[in-house]
């Protein structure tokens, strides 16, 4: 029995399927990240866990107890919404104290608890200020304090970093992860950004179109996506996708012709080859797995025309045209070529992804 078990949850809004047969388990004390593009059903899922939306089917078990039909107030689940519930007409203290006042706790206890949580989150200076004076990060901290002051069994965070700028996002994420390690609160964290999810989550679930498509540790999800849509979703910058013709040339070795720009040889197991009987395959290459090629052309070298360069910090994102096909690559080495000039790229055949042309399933060697 896991701490939290979600079993076969489905929800429709009218004709639209928001969640389709969702099942997963969350361990006590972990950060479980749910990543999915906007509209995937993340907020609906969290609201179902909180009890704010009733699922059409399925059940939720917390510590083995069925809480599916319990009203939100009796679940002891805290939630920080994308629009943090910080009421603009009252101070930080009054906002954090709100749940305790609703529970009619004595005044001195409220005072004590609010100060404790404020101390813990380093927001004592915000207690007497009006929310209109807060920065984005401060908003989120106060919202978190309000959710934590009740000591919830599970903390649901719905896109908590969405409206913050990149640098503050990273700061807040590290801070949040460290805080969670101290408190050991079980956290379910939703985000539209796969990088955000993999950075904060102990485990990550990928939610696409109302379906949980894959659950695993961040490296598992990032390095071994189970299908093309997951690979596309987790790859930033966007995955290079090509059609490939596949041909068995030796025992367990195939040759893949990638749209005529490159022929690569790859070792595949018998079962993998079995799945690719049709002779067609979809090839996915992460821009990070393509690099500049130095020296004379050799096997796995692609020659093309550099059409666009974009500097991303110490790396450069380049677009290269080969036989009128565009290829994106992230180059770590110093780029000497200029736009419109010839450039040579190389890739490691081990790192390319092969997807089944009909099902989109990833085929690993």
């Amino acid at each position: 029995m896991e701490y939290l078990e979600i079993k076969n949850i489905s929800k429709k809004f009218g004709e639209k399927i928001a969640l389709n047969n969702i099942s997963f388990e969350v361990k006590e004390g972990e950060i479980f990240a749910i990543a999915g593009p906007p509209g995937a059903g993340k907020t609906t899922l969290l609201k179902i866990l909180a009890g704010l939306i009733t699922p059409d089917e399925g059940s939720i078990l917390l510590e083995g107890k069925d809480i599916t039909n319990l009203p939100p107030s009796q679940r002891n689940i805290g939630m920080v919404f994308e629009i943090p519930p910080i009421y603009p007409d009252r101070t930080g203290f009054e906002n954090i104290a709100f749940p305790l006042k609703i529970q009619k706790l004595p005044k001195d206890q409220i005072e004590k608890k609010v100060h404790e949580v404020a101390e813990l989150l380093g927001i004592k200076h915000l207690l007497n200020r009006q929310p209109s004076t807060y920065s984005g990060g401060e908003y989120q901290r106060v919202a978190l304090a309000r959710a934590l002051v009740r000591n919830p069994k599970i903390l649901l965070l719905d896109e908590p970093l969405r409206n913050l700028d990149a640098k503050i996002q990273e700061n807040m994420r590290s801070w949040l992860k460290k805080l969670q390690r101290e408190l050991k609160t079980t956290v379910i964290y939703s985000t539209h950004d796969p990088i955000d999810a993999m950075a904060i989550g102990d485990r990550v679930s990928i939610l696409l179109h109302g379906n949980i498509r894959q659950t695993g540790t961040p490296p598992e999800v990032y390095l071994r996506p189970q299908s093309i849509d997951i690979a596309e979703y987790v790859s930033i910058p966007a995955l290079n996708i090509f059609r490939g013709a596949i041909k068995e040339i030796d025992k367990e070795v195939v040759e893949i012709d990638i749209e005529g720009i490159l022929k690569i040889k790859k070792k595949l197991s018998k079962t993998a080859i079995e799945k690719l009987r049709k002779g067609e395959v979809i090839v996915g290459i992460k821009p990070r797995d393509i690099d500049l090629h130095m020296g004379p052309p050799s096997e796995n070298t692609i020659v093309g025309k550099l059409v666009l360069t974009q500097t991303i910090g110490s790396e450069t994102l380049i677009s290269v045209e080969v036989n009128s096909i565009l290829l994106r690559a992230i180059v770590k080495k110093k780029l000497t070529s200029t736009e419109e000039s010839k450039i040579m790229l190389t890739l490691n055949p081990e790192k390319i992804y092969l997807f089944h042309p009909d099902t989109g399933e990833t085929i690993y060697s």
Partner: protein
Amino acid sequence: MTKRIISKFLRYIVIIAFLAWILIPVLWMFTLAFKSYPEWRVAYFFPKEPTIMNFILVFEPKQIIGMMGATALVDPVTLPFINSLLVVGASTVLAVIIGFFTAYGASRYNSPGPFSLFFTLLTRMLPPATFVTPIMVYYANLKLLDSHLGLIMLYSAVTVTYGIWILKGFIDQVPVEWEQAALLEGATHIQVVFKVTLPIVKSGLVVSGLFIFLLNWAELLFALVLTNVQAVTLPVHISKYVGAVGQLYGPQAALGILSSLIPVVIGYLIQKHLVTAFTFGMVR
């Protein structure tokens, strides 16, 4: 350079012309109130011999007889003033309270549907003169003529639609998640309304209240038809100064100043809310 000066100059001309258009009648009323009887109909702005006689006459209108040969009498302003405060105050509070709950239902539960909410505006689409007669007949039967209750009911009914529409705008801006957070924390739905939403839209209550108050404070037609002695309001009282009793422009202007005092004071007291009402006091 000169072009900029000219455009600046033109801008000021426009602003001054606009202000004059709005304010000259008010200024005229103001100076008229301090003019003595012979000056009332003279077309110059400032009184030659400023007097506060008009203000005294408003409270002791008996002196008007003899002074200028007016035949009929008007009453002191005291009763209409109290009536206006009572009727307008009560109907405003009523309209705002009913408006808030209707707006809340409309905003959160889409009740009673956009169609019927739209029709709350109906009373403002018809010229009041079209339905004042039927109301007079009803009121005569219900013994509500010349009563405070009758006016309060009518005033709140015809202005509640402003409360609904203004407050719906405010409530719509309160994210539903703010209420859900409170539900999660153990609050009941009633507590959510009173402890979360109501305090947040406080500025909206004040703004819609002021708006409704101003409309009712200046309302003349209904009060003129439906009141007579007991429940006469200020606008009706003011209108009496020109007509049956002669043309007492001076005291009428003095009354105008007195009757504008209340809205001005209220407006001043709540100006903080008027500002926060538009910014909604939050940062997104």
